[in-house]
């Protein structure tokens, strides 16, 4: 079979047209994407971001997420010296004790900041800071005369900010701040402070081996109690918050499935011949899904107040819409033959549904429900941040203080782990239940 000249020309035209369209696609699509992103950059004022970007905030956040500082402060009126981790009451050393790099003396307190940086609190509020490679800085703060700083050089280096009432010396080793009423120095350490035991616990500062051997020696309950009620990290509260978040997701997802299943029959073409009921149910689902979880959360929190129940109900209502839609689609795809088979044995309608329909749709339903369970764990974190429940609330609370970034990091790590574990768990359950179901029938 040979092609006539006419057909060849036609084929050529066709091919050219295809190539033309391909060319248009391969150049047009990236062009549209770039154009849209440029528009977004202008509309969102991305160039202005460099001005709004707060480098100090970013630096504080990053530094605080993996390190902590220990404050050694002296009240210049009473002469009292306190050592506190992060300057918080919860992390204060008991009176008369201090970390080992601080030597408490009767009149003189020597603070070794490491790398030969030494700060000395002397008598009569006298302060000296020996900076290697620069010299000895001294100050004699008093209520009437101000800080009275003496620097070894005539020009003030940029890492020192000095005025009559306040002097701040920032070095790699730490920071010394002197005002009329207060002298404070802090030193940075890597790690999360007091993660296991706070300073008032008898186990604080002991090594892992020591604590383990004591635990084996019969103190495990007490050790656990000390860890669990840690005032700084509040492990018990955090565990409870995570439980609450998972509870919200569980109640919401399962509740939605229970509500949606009977309604889905009303929305399926092959079970509800009446167009009116079917359409009404479907619009019902669309409405529940369309009014977002955010709006449901707002409406429900007015009635029930903030808390996990509100979050669970918000998830329940939104997902009733989603599940209703998916379940009714699954119901429309069921095989008629099995139902007829059941019917031929003289089964009543309820029995027909139970033995003819439910076994067919169970695997689909289960896999969708479990998928939503995982996704709702994430939603519950977000809803919790708005409605005030679970780990989402702890996260926003820690962020509002703008200094507990190590706790924020801790919560973020926990949230990611929680979601990943739920993801793994729902996948495992899905495989287990669905394959188990098939072999069972």
């Amino acid at each position, binding site marked *: 079979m040979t092609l006539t000249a006419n057909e060849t020309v036609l084929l050529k035209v066709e091919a050219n047209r295809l190539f033309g369209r391909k060319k248009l696609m391969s150049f047009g699509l990236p062009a549209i994407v770039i154009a*849209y992103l440029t528009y977004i950059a202008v509309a969102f004022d991305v160039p202005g971001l460099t001005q709004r*970007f707060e480098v100090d905030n970013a630096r504080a956040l990053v530094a605080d997420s993996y390190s902590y500082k220990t404050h050694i402060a002296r009240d210049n009126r009473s002469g009292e010296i306190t050592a506190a981790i992060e300057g918080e009451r919860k992390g204060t050393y008991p009176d008369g004790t201090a970390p080992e790099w601080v030597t408490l003396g009767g009149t003189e307190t020597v603070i070794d900041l490491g790398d030969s940086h030494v700060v000395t609190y002397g008598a009569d509020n006298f302060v000296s800071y020996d900076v290697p490679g620069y010299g000895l800085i001294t100050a004699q703060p008093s209520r009437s005369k101000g800080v009275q700083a003496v620097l070894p050089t005539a020009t003030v280096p940029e890492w020192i900010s000095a005025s009559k009432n306040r002097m701040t010396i920032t070095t790699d080793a730490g920071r010394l701040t002197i005002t009329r009423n207060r002298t404070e120095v802090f030193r940075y350490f890597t790690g999360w402070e007091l993660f296991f035991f706070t300073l008032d616990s008898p186990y604080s500062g002991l090594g892992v081996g020591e604590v383990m051997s004591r635990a084996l020696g019969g103190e495990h309950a007490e050790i656990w109690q000390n860890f669990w009620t840690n005032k700084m990290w509040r492990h018990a509260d955090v565990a409870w918050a995570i439980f609450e978040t998972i509870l919200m997701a569980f109640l919401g997802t399962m509740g939605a499935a229970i509500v949606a299943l009977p309604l889905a029959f009303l929305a399926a073409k092959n079970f509800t011949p009446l167009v009116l009921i079917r359409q009404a149910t479907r619009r019902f689902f669309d409405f529940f899904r369309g009014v977002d979880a955010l709006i449901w959360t707002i409406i429900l929190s007015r009635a029930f107040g903030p808390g996990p*129940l509100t979050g669970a109900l918000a998830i329940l209502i939104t997902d009733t819409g989603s599940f209703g839609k998916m379940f009714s689609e699954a119901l429309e795809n069921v095989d008629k033959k099995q139902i007829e088979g059941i019917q031929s044995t003289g089964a009543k309608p309820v029995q027909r549904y139970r033995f003819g329909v439910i076994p067919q749709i169970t695997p689909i339903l289960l896999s969708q429900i479990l998928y939503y369970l995982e996704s709702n764990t994430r939603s519950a*974190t977000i809803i919790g*941040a708005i409605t005030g429940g679970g780990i989402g609330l702890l996260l926003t609370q820690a962020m509002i203080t703008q200094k507990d970034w190590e706790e924020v990091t801790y919560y973020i790590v926990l949230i990611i782990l929680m979601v990943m574990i739920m993801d793994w768990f729902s996948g495992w359950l899905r495989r287990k239940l669905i394959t188990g179901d098939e072999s069972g029938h």
Partner: protein
Amino acid sequence: MTDQASSVVDIRADYMAQVRRKRMMDGIILVVFIALMVTGFMIADDRNAGGFWEGLHRIFDFPKEVLSEAIEKIAELPANLWKYLPSLIETINIAAASTLLGAMLGMLLSLLSTRGMAKWPRLIPLFRRIMDVMRAVPEIVIALVLIFIMGGGPVPAMIAIAFHTSGALGKLFSEVNENASLKPVEGLQSVGASWAQRMWLGVIPQVAPNYLSYALLRFEINIRASAILGFVGAGGIGYELRNAMSWGKGQYDDAMAIFLLLFLTIVAVDQLSSVVRERLTHGKTQKVAS
């Protein structure tokens, strides 16, 4: 004969025992499930500021209040809708831009983590773990951190949603990739095409309809996400909603307009995307048939 009869009886007894066991297992699972639901509900009810039963009859109070005020000021509704249109557009833009960026990054990650296509086959597990972590991060976490660093506005929300989206889409995309034929890739390799060329010309044309379908589904989800992030200070219609809510009584006509805009947008995108996705998958089967 008697032998056979006894074996039938045996089989029946065996079967009935199995059925009983299964029913019992089902019953136990059901009881445990109900117990979990009830205790879970009771705990949640206990931890809530207001109880479920006291709150139940008040559930319509707030919608009624909002609606009655909105109906009172029905004349202002068109003006209000117009007033909040720009912030709605911002919300949609956040969703669209983050879906676009997330899809591009997700595409890259999925190609790098599919066997047979990966540029560095040894790093496949690494890229998979990266996607898992990205998927697990709720948007609000990144958004709150970024709001602290860069101040409020649409950009933190966009980055946060794009981050999560690339993980979520990356996983779906890599499932699509596994079903793609590797023959075009091998063909391109034999003529000396680079990795980028092999992917762009050999894989993407095969998987583009499915990618687009998933991206549209994600766009729908991201509109909701960007509305929620607005509520915590990331711009868009969610931010306006929080303001309108905090003004309280007297501003409920504003809240109503925002509710309406958000609802209509979500429903419209939902319908639109399901139509387009239907066409995308339908068009493909037609091509195969012809």
